[in-house]
């Protein structure tokens, strides 16, 4: 059965290996220079507030080269690899056999249908996880200097890629393992149910894409109850502020000073009593109408306006990675169980 799995899978396996090799070459060609830029930036071993500037300088420096393009290509590849695996490895696995009638050949040999499915799911599922994680680890190695610069509070010219950014969280650590396993088995399940490869691929893509969008928006923020705090305005390191001439204003926090890696879920202005406010105190209205941002903010701060922030602290990064991966693996196991049940007693 291992032989058959390999024989039917080898074209896909070779394709995946070639894609990995091409990606490795791209990273190997650009990685060393990126590392030398980082070494020359002086971020390593720096102390205090100057680090932030050094880190930002480094990140701006990258914009000039092709590094951001390579970075984004890498992130996109890691995001799409599980979907591609679900579509091209998962969905046709059973559906193509049914379409060509060869399931009647495969399932009337001496081994049981359960064994056929078990070996295929295990081997191709492990390959899916290995390939995806290999992409992620290679990209993680390449992008390590960027991650460290961001960790020092640097903000990039294009995207502030803290580790909790949806694109970074989903492409580093162990989450790619969960996505790959889930997408593959989702494809298999769609094939088992729909029995035709192309519609099964479409359904796989739709469901997986919907889940990938829903996860950072509605699921991940609530895996752990977020921390809540209220800080003074000057404790926000990346603030966005806007107001109108009637004195209505809004403050949003991009990052907390001292916790550049924390994941801000929501933020807003509150008064000294902790109640949300959107109308400036009378004393500050003139400053809002006339003045620039800083003077208005100073006035608001001196009148007791603070910023309430809900966030996931950076220390929860791995707990969230593990929890989300566990959820995806659990979904994958449930779907696999369904496939065994369905194939074991219902399908022809």
């Amino acid at each position, binding site marked *: *059965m291992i*032989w*058959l799995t390999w*024989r*039917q899978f080898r074209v896909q396996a070779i394709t995946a290996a070639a894609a990995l090799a091409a990606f490795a070459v791209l990273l190997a060609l650009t990685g060393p220079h990126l590392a030398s830029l980082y070494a020359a930036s002086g971020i390593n071993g720096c102390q205090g507030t100057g680090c932030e500037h050094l880190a930002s300088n480094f990140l701006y420096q990258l914009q000039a080269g092709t590094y951001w393009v390579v970075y984004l290509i890498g992130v996109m590849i890691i995001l799409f690899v599980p979907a591609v695996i679900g579509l091209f490895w998962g969905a046709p696995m059973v559906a193509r056999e049914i379409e*060509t*009638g*060869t399931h*009647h*050949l*495969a*399932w*009337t*040999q*001496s*081994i*049981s*249908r359960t064994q056929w499915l078990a070996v295929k799911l295990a081997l191709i599922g492990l390959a899916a996880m290995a390939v995806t994680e290999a992409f992620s680890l290679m990209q993680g190695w390449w992008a390590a200097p960027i991650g460290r610069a961001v960790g020092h509070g640097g903000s990039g010219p294009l995207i502030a890629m803290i580790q909790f950014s949806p694109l970074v969280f989903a492409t580093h650590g162990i989450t790619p393992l969960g996505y790959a396993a889930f997408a593959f088995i989702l494809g298999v399940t769609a094939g088992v149910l729909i029995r035709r490869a192309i519609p099964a691929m479409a359904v796989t893509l739709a469901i997986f894409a919907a889940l990938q969008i829903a996860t950072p928006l509605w699921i991940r923020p609530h895996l752990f109850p977020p921390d809540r705090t209220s800080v003074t305005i000057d404790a926000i390191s990346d603030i966005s502020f806007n107001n109108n001439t009637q004195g209505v204003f809004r403050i949003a926090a991009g990052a907390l000073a001292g916790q550049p890696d924390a994941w801000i879920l929501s933020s807003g202005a509150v008064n000294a009593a902790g109640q949300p406010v959107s109308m400036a105190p009378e004393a500050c209205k003139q400053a809002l109408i006339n003045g620039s941002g800083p003077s208005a903010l100073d006035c608001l701060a001196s009148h007791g306006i603070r910023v309430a922030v809900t966030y996931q602290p950076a220390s929860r990064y791995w707990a969230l990675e593990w929890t989300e991966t566990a959820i995806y693996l659990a979904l994958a196991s449930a779907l696999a169980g369904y496939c065994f049940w369905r194939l074991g*007693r*219902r399908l*022809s």
Partner: protein
Amino acid sequence: MTAVLEARGLGKRYRRMWALADCTLSVPAGHVVGLVGPNGAGKTTLLNLAGGLLAPTTGTIEVLGGPPLARLARIGFLAQHAPVYAGLSVADHLAFGAHLNPGWDAGLARSRIERLDLDPGQRAGTLSGGQRAQLALTLAVAKRPDLLILDEPVASLDPLARREFLQELMEAVAGQGLSVVLSSHLVSDLERVCDYLVVLVGSRVRVAGPVDELLATHHLLSGPRRDPDTLPAGQRVISASHTDRQSTLLVHTIDPVLDPAWTVSEVDLEDLVLAYMSQAAAGGRRHLEVQR
């Protein structure tokens, strides 16, 4: 003698349509069994149930004394349209058989492929229909099964390939002493190879038995016109046709026909099968009329 195929009250329903209903059948070992019936009679459903590819909706089916899924290693199954992997070569298919069947007879498989003059390196997708059927038969036979199930194995073959296939089949059967169940909607295919016949019409078994016994107990009677209901108790009319003066009846009886009014002639397999098929069709029509 043990049964290779034993069905009791077997039925299979797809959504709201019964593909096979209330099928009770016992096929003894050591026969080449022809399963014949018109298209859509339930032949494929019955064979897929026997091969463990379907689960019954009602009743039970046992193959070689046990449930089909527990007997997979002892059943050689050639599915309808003889599916093979288009992208795999002939040699790959033999490796497939070898890896998936502990009882695989590599020598038998290789010698069959050589005799059939199949190129081991050729992809199965480029084989002709006859070659594909032969390759699929090789896979089924080299597994060294005790029961070979063939679903319309010659339906897509031209007459020459058809004869060659059946010849190959008979040689394999003679060499290995296995039991065979094969289906066809053409009696002529079965006549040459089968010694046991099952007629399946409208998802029900109409008659089943050894061919020589069936031929010995069915007679074609012709004589002056008379009502079939006036026949002796032991004679069962399968089909009847009447002209103004004459009646021609195909009857089943285990006793000799003694009435001198009849001219008794022997039936051949084709007459017999057609009689059961038309009986079923007439029965179906009557049934419809009653419903109306």
